């Protein structure tokens, strides 16, 4: 069976190739659906090859763990609602980080049992297995650190998006405490990597690493979670790459590094879309600036559903701006039904999507796609903004901060500088909103007080149904 290791290596090569090609296909809407299948085949090949590795023990346990993990995740992933996708990504990502940390832990603990003297290129253990060099230990420690942070941080992100943790935990001196925890973990990691492989030290190291992930994520507000999840996604990729180096597994090195790099860029793109730096997301305190925001003059002016329907029925161009509120109310199907009725009447309808609409960039596109909206009716911010002055009615449904003109006019506003959809430039604006309160980020919205804006109060689903009914009665 001398050929077996080569076959396994070839399988890992094939897996790495399929991952890269799959990811490449996923980056274009037309081939995206095939992309995930390619990557999936790669994963299957790599896992089967690993089962065939010659010097493996505990095969029964491995199979049991794989089956349990796959079944549980498959089941939960199948039945979760589309709106809950971001937290599911956070959850699965956390699991990956945890797995990377577990690999690091297993490596470190297995060396801890045997007395080793290092620093001079490694030593040998009692049972003849070679012990790691400092570089290998350092990589294992680094992977474990990043993986642990990603694990506990992603779980907090999951809990926050799921609504289990809706408060931000902030206390004075938090940043200093966080930095001390991180510094402690790094120092312990350094000691481990330089050969102090004692069990209490390793346990303390993991405790601090996990604690840091927790404390780093707790003060971050829900609106910033997408950036954080994306960052942890990149972290997990890096952790996997480092543990891959430790295990000398090429598929892990390549897949982990590709994800680490892609994830880092994706995080930057997201942060840029929100006009915030990554450092600002992680260490700034969003919405807690304390500066007095400008008082907004005027009042919100309500409108009835039938008037709103008439307005849009006789408009030439209507732009619908959906936000997360629409998705929460599960109104996307009704909204699309309404849009189709308008299109039948000859109205030119477009959907305008802010880069961070929803809970993640592109989340809203997914939700609209779910409702059956073809993606050529969906416009990006840069394409649609010049069109607002020629737009008769902009229908804002469930969106708030991404259409707030204060982002342009009020330097004291926490969202100042964030690019927005210029709906205020449309001739008329109709805002569907549940009540008079502020939005997700807790910021007053000047748009609601503008002269050309009318408020249609109600739950997104109910309001959309009313609009559909009014439009139908108009035709009969």
């Amino acid at each position, binding site marked *: 069976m001398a050929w077996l290791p080569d076959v396994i290596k070839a399988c890992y090569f094939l897996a790495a190739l399929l991952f890269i090609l*799959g*990811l*490449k296909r*996923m980056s274009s809407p037309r081939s*995206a659906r095939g992309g995930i299948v390619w*990557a*999936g085949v790669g*994963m299957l090949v790599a*896992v089967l090859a*690993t089962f065939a590795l010659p*010097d*493996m023990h505990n095969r029964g*346990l*491995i199979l049991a*763990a*794989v089956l349990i*993990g796959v079944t549980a*995740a498959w089941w939960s*992933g199948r039945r979760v609602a589309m709106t809950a*996708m971001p937290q599911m*990504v956070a959850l*699965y*990502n956390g*699991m*990956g980080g945890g*797995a*990377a940390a*577990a*690999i690091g832990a*297993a490596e470190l603990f*297995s060396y801890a049992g045997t007395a080793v003297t290092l620093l001079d290129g490694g030593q040998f253990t009692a049972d003849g297995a070679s012990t790691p060099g400092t570089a290998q230990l350092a990589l294992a420690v680094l992977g474990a650190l990043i993986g642990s942070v990603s694990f506990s941080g992603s779980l907090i992100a999951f809990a926050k998006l799921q609504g289990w943790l809706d408060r931000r935990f902030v206390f004075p001196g938090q940043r200093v405490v966080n930095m001390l925890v991180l510094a402690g973990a790094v120092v312990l990691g350094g000691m481990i990597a330089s050969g102090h492989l004692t069990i209490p030290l390793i346990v303390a190291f993991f405790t601090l690493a996990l604690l840091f992930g927790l404390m780093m994520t707790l003060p971050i507000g829900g609106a910033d979670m997408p950036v954080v999840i*994306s960052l942890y*996604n990149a972290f997990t*990729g890096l*952790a996997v*790459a480092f543990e*891959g*180096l430790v*295990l*000398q*597994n090429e598929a*892990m*090195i*390549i*897949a*982990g*590094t*590709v994800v680490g*790099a*892609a994830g*880092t860029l*994706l995080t930057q793109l997201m942060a840029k879309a929100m006009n915030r730096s990554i450092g600002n997301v992680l260490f700034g305190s969003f919405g807690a600036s304390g500066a007095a925001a400008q008082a907004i003059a005027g009042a919100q002016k309500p409108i009835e559903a039938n008037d709103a329907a008439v307005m849009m029925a006789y408009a030439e161009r209507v732009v619908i701006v959906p936000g997360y509120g629409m998705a929460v109310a599960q109104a996307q199907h009704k909204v699309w039904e309404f849009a189709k009725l308008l*299109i039948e009447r000859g109205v030119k309808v477009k959907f305008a*999507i802010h880069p961070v609409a929803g809970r*993640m960039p*592109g989340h809203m*596109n997914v939700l609209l796609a779910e409702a059956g909206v*073809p*993606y*050529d009716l969906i416009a990006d911010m840069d394409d649609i903004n010049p069109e607002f002055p020629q737009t008769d009615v902009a229908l804002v449904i469930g969106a708030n901060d991404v259409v707030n003109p204060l982002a342009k006019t009020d330097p004291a506003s926490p969202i100042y500088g964030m690019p927005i959809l210029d709906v205020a430039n449309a001739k008329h604006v109709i805002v569907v909103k549940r009540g008079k309160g502020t939005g997700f980020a807790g910021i007053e919205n000047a748009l609601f007080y503008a002269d050309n804006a009318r408020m249609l109060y109600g739950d997104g689903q109910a309001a959309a149904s009313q609009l559909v009914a009014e439009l139908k009665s108009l035709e009969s």
Partner: protein
Amino acid sequence: MIDGFLALYIFMLAAFTGYEIIARVPVILHTPLMSGSNFIHGIVLVGAMIALGHAQTPFEVGIGFMGVLLGAGNAAGGYVVTERMLEMFKSSKPAAGKEAK
């Protein structure tokens, strides 16, 4: 087997590959792509399997078992979620033409 510098080269080239693939991606695919890359680092499952396969003490076996469990969750969950998202990206033209009538 892989010496230090070879590993460094692999690392560098893979990092550029990841960067280049994402660089020209449209916004509408950001979420599916994040989910897709989330699936791809599910390859950690392979490492966890190796760790469990080489575990000796019951404690190591316990850690390895957790690792495989989590890794399998990452891979399977990541796949299902990504696939469900991408399923919705139908080719637009025929659908639009039919439904707009």
